[in-house]
């Protein structure tokens, strides 16, 4: 009979339990270990971790990966990772907090300023110096670098411009027998005539996940010389120009020039309105014809319109690349960023981008100039474009709370439902913003 001695059995059980405990403690110890050198921002062996967003079709990320992984400098190489937009801020935050974040990344328009507040951003002054040496600094379009300059240094380096140009459908204006608007007064008149043919003279939307409506509100404020912030970055919601702009928006709503259902339009709904010939005029992103599936040439970029006081402004979001303090080598991060900025031309050459470039040389590429809408935006919109900072030039972390926050979205939806007056809506907006910005 094969009977194990009791002591042996006992030992075996203890041994088993010991092994179990040891195995269970491995993840615990690993979790307690936090960011070791190998888990740190850059990874081991001088590998620069570059995180990028899905800025366009999947082909974009494939091309960007090749550009990033083509880096070899400062005894380093680079790895490439796509980060989805869903909860991207949390993805970055938790990775940075656990010291497993990237060394360099693209991301939200104001993300660099948010992380700068937490002391997580490495300033890009040395990169700018390098760009001056290799001639790329002089290649920047006018004014695109200024929003990133702070007292402490350059928080990030811009690499593409997300503009909100005005688009219109030619055939609808011809059918309504009206000229394309050049100012607010003609916008109102054209809108009334377009309504008579069943089209909307000012297309926008603020449904689930659609921020075009929010951008429209800020665009109209700054187009009237107003905006949410003063030149020195102070909150200034209740100024007369803003009140006037919002009264005009309410007039567009009450006249049916803005679709009464626009408040709930997702981007898909808005695309459908443009495709189905319901939307005649309105602010949107680059590449609307391709986006909505009508490349017949009927949907084209309009010239910027003037406000009642003659102000003419466009709205732009300068997207940027930032470096983090958690890196295996700051020198390698800088070398990587200089390398990547020198390569991004390829993305426009392959027609993968749905945004404007920041370099003049890219705007001169035949692949870019072949689209007359692109040429018009660079020529007419870029020189007059302002950011969410409104009258100010420098961006800040506060703008993230404005852009994605509840206050602006609620304000926009209140206006689009038309069940308010301008001053009450602006007061509620200001109060909502204050409660967020004080944090």
């Amino acid at each position: 009979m094969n009977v194990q001695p009791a002591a042996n059995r006992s030992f075996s059980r203890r041994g088993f339990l010991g092994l179990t405990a040891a195995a269970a403690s491995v993840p615990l110890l690993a979790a307690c270990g936090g960011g070791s050198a190998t888990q740190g921002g850059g990874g081991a062996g001088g590998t620069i971790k570059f995180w990028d967003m899905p800025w366009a079709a999947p082909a974009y990320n494939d091309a960007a990966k090749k550009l990033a992984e083509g880096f070899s400098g400062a005894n380093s190489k680079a790895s490439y990772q796509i980060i989805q937009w869903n909860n991207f801020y949390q993805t970055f935050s938790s990775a940075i907090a656990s010291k497993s974040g990237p060394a360099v990344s693209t991301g939200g328009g104001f993300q660099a300023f948010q992380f700068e507040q937490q002391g997580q951003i490495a300033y890009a002054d040395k990169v700018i110096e390098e760009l001056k040496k290799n001639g790329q600094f002089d290649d920047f379009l006018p004014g695109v670098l200024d929003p990133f300059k702070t007292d402490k240094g350059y928080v990030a380096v811009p690499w593409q411009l997300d503009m909100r140009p005005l688009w219109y459908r030619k055939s609808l204006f011809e059918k309504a027998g009206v000229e394309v608007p050049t100012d607010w007064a003609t916008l109102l008149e054209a809108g009334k005539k377009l309504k008579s043919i069943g089209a909307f003279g000012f297309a926008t939307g603020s449904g689930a996940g659609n921020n075009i409506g929010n951008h429209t509100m800020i665009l109209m404020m700054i187009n009237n010389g107003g905006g949410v912030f003063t030149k020195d970055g102070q909150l200034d919601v209740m100024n007369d120009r803003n009140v006037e702009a919002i009264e005009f928006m309410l007039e567009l709503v009450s006249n049916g020039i803005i679709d009464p259902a626009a408040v709930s339009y997702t981007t898909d709904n808005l695309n459908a309105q443009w495709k189905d010939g319901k939307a005649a005029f309105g602010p949107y992103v680059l590449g609307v014809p391709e986006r909505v599936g009508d490349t017949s040439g009927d949907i084209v970029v309009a010239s910027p319109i003037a406000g009642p006081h003659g102000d003419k402004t466009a709205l732009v979001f300068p997207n940027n690349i930032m470096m983090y303090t958690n890196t295996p080598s700051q020198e390698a991060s800088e070398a990587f960023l200089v390398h990547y900025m020198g390569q991004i031309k390829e993305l426009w050459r392959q027609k993968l981008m749905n945004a404007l470039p920041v370099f003049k040389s890219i705007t001169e590429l035949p692949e870019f100039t072949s689209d007359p809408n692109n040429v018009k935006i660079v020529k007419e919109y870029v020189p007059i474009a302002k950011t969410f900072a409104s009258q100010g030039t420098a961006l800040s972390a506060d703008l993230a709370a404005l852009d994605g926050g509840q206050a602006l979205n609620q304000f926009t939806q209140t206006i689009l439902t038309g069940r308010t007056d301008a001053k009450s809506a602006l007061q509620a907006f200001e109060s909502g913003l204050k409660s967020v910005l004080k944090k």
Partner: protein
Amino acid sequence: MSSTTAPSGLARARKGLAPGGPGGGSRNRKDLNRKDLNRKSKLSAQTSRTFFWLLLPSVILLVLIHGYPLFHAGIQATHDGNLIETGNFVGVENFANVLSSPAFWKAAQFTLWFTIVGVFGSWLVGLGLALLLRTKIPAGGTFKVLLLLPWVVPIVVSSTAWNWLVATPDSLIPSIFRNLGLGTPLFLADPTLAAVTVMIFKVWVSFPFMMMMISAALASVDTTVYEAASMDGASRWQQFTQITLPLIARSTYISWILMTIFCVNDFPTIYLLTGGGPVDATTSLVVLAYRTVFQDFATGPGVAIAFLMTMTLVVVSVILYRQIRKSSVE
């Protein structure tokens, strides 16, 4: 050797006494009992130790999975930080601010209505269909599968389909209303209609779950009970109210508890269809918590909302659980 008679032996045996008599026998018995007890307690202690060590990894894992996030959330709820920094300790200030905020109470009110309509609407539809499918109908199995589709189809797909049905004035359902001379309702743009639409969407998504729960409960009901009731002259309505409902009460309460939790915690149904709008008309507490944390970057108030939701859910669940116990006793 013992000289006890058989009957007295049985009596002793019943009393548990040893054959040697109460004197020496008792001593022997005590020794035996002590030894037995010692052995048992040794075994018991050994078993307990074994169980303890076997359970320890699972307990550690549970603490890590549930305890740590809860503890961390508690820290966040009492601080004024953001997603990166914990911030300063503010005590119950976040809870006080949340409870004094009109947005919280508006969201709480919507959550309440959304839950009431979601639970009882889906239960009524599920009950009706379960009773219908109980009768012999041609292709009953196929119907059951088809009726499960709203529950099976991913919510991203069904919300897109519903958006296509109602979003614009030219969508299918507004067009039908217009052609019937009922105007052009803006189902997602009008705050009241948007709230109603979201609730109907929730009922549509949830009724198959209720139908399955009730079908399972109905399957266990003995049909002879109905035959007996018929012979006693009970009407169909009396049979339904006096037999069917009491017999499925237990699973009904369970399904109510589950659906209450599903409704209160439901994020995608609302967020994908309306994003919580227009003008917060469909913002539930979970949507408000999400927006507060991830859009306003205010983790303290956002987590405080989540805590308040959890506490409310626990209270409601306990009340419904008591109903289950009550129905079991009855």
